[in-house]
């Protein structure tokens, strides 16, 4: 495959940055999107141009490191992470635009790499359980209803990649926070800190500069793990309950 790539390049956070155009040839449709970028980087290195910085780690779709805005869609076409996207999803001769996540709360560090430290700080503010649950209990000692267990499990698949924020016109991280609050709030261990968790996480979310949710739903359609939009209803429900409890 022969492709024209329009790639955002930015030396550092302060740099203005801009789109650079590159041609690549001999791209196999079986390559992953990141392997295609590896090929380009190898060539740039040979030609003496600094390779394009982009994040990746497991390349199996489970770590949440890769974060490319491809033709205006977070992680490109389909329900997948950038690393699990393959070149067969594109056609020969196509022009592909690649940008970093766009959000005030995710400053660009370099090229396609953004700082997602804001997510870590949101997790630090409440995405944990600090009650001591003792040694491993017998499996049947604390019953958890099947629907609750399934729900907690489903929303726990959030890998914190930030696609929801990148897709949202408001730059809101409500889907991410909603997933964490729902995951921990469904389980018995999460009850002790349920009120303080939601209050602290929402406060941190706002302090980081993420926008508010206006029920547009781009986040849920961009999510590679298909976190449903109704976790945000749950987030609002829990926040309201915590305020009624005087938090």
């Amino acid at each position, binding site marked *: 495959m022969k492709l024209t790539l329009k790639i955002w390049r930015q*030396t*550092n956070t302060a740099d203005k940055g801009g789109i650079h155009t590159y041609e690549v040839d001999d791209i196999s*449709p*079986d390559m992953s999107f990141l392997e295609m970028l*590896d090929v380009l*980087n*190898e060539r740039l*290195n*040979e030609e*003496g*141009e*600094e*390779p394009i*910085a982009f994040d990746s780690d497991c390349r199996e779709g489970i770590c949440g490191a890769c974060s490319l805005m491809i033709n205006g869609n977070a992680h490109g076409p389909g329900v*997948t992470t950038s690393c*699990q996207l*393959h070149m*067969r999803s594109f056609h020969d001769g196509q022009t592909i635009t690649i940008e970093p996540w766009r959000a005030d709360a995710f400053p660009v*560090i*370099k090229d396609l*790499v953004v700082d997602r430290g804001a997510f870590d700080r949101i997790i630090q503010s409440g995405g944990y359980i600090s009650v001591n649950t003792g040694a491993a209990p017998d499996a049947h000692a604390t019953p958890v209803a099947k629907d609750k267990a399934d729900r907690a499990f489903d929303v726990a698949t959030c890998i914190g990649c930030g696609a929801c924020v990148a897709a949202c016109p408001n730059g809101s991280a409500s889907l991410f926070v909603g997933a964490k609050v729902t995951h921990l709030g469904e389980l018995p261990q999460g009850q002790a800190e349920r009120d303080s968790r939601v209050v602290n996480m929402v406060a941190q979310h706002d302090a980081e500069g993420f926008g508010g949710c206006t029920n547009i739903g781009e986040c849920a359609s961009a999510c590679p793990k298909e976190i449903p939009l109704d976790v945000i209803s749950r987030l609002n429900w829990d926040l309201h309950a915590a305020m009624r409890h005087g938090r």
Partner: protein
Amino acid sequence: MYAQITGEDPYTVPMRIYPAVHYVMGGLWVDYDLQSTIPGLFVTGEANFSDHGANRLGASALMQGLADGYFVLSNTIRDYLADGPFDRVPEDHPSVVEAQQSVQQRIDHFMNTQGTRSVDSYHRELGNIMWEFCGMERTQDGLTKAIDLIRTLRDDFWRNVKVLGTADSMNQSLEKAGRVADFLELGELMCIDALNRRESCGGHFRGESQTDDGEALRHDDQYSYVAAWEWTGEGPDREMGTPVLHKENLTYEFVEMMQRSYK
């Protein structure tokens, strides 16, 4: 997932299955508190050697992450911290100065080499050597050859690697160069260890050690130990010093060592 990765529908086209490297058996040596030879440096999960033998089965990483993080460290780190507060290490402490200097020298070396080969190309070549000669089946000849090849590659890496960009901002090539330097050491050590162990055990099949019908043959009388290799520094041309073997014998009081049959 298979269809997404390969572009082939496994209901109509036979699946293509190939072994893949997904673990390094072994890791950093730790004591029962998961503390390394450096006081206060705890090594957990897959990074330490402790919870598996010559094989890692499915979910070993999950088990080790949970056991280390939830049950062991929550007690042993508290025990360590109970001896605190610790004195602040001054920035002009000779060890700090030495560490900073050696890191800075390494960075300067990579930035100033201006060679012709990318870091990734070294990484891939090392991967091929390991796959070819230190994979599931290994032999004395193959491992000896691999050690030679790695030493040559390592020598070339330090003379001819090409790292563009600068060292004062994010530089992924520079980050990778440091890691590939580590992998070159680790790869050589894995081959040395494999060469030393003339038996087939767990996930490792030593060509010279098999039964008449081609099954893995262990030698518990000679190799019933954990091998902890001591780092002895680098030579003047950055060649790896000969590592020193420390043995921790495996002694079982309540179970009898058996051979598992996969037939």
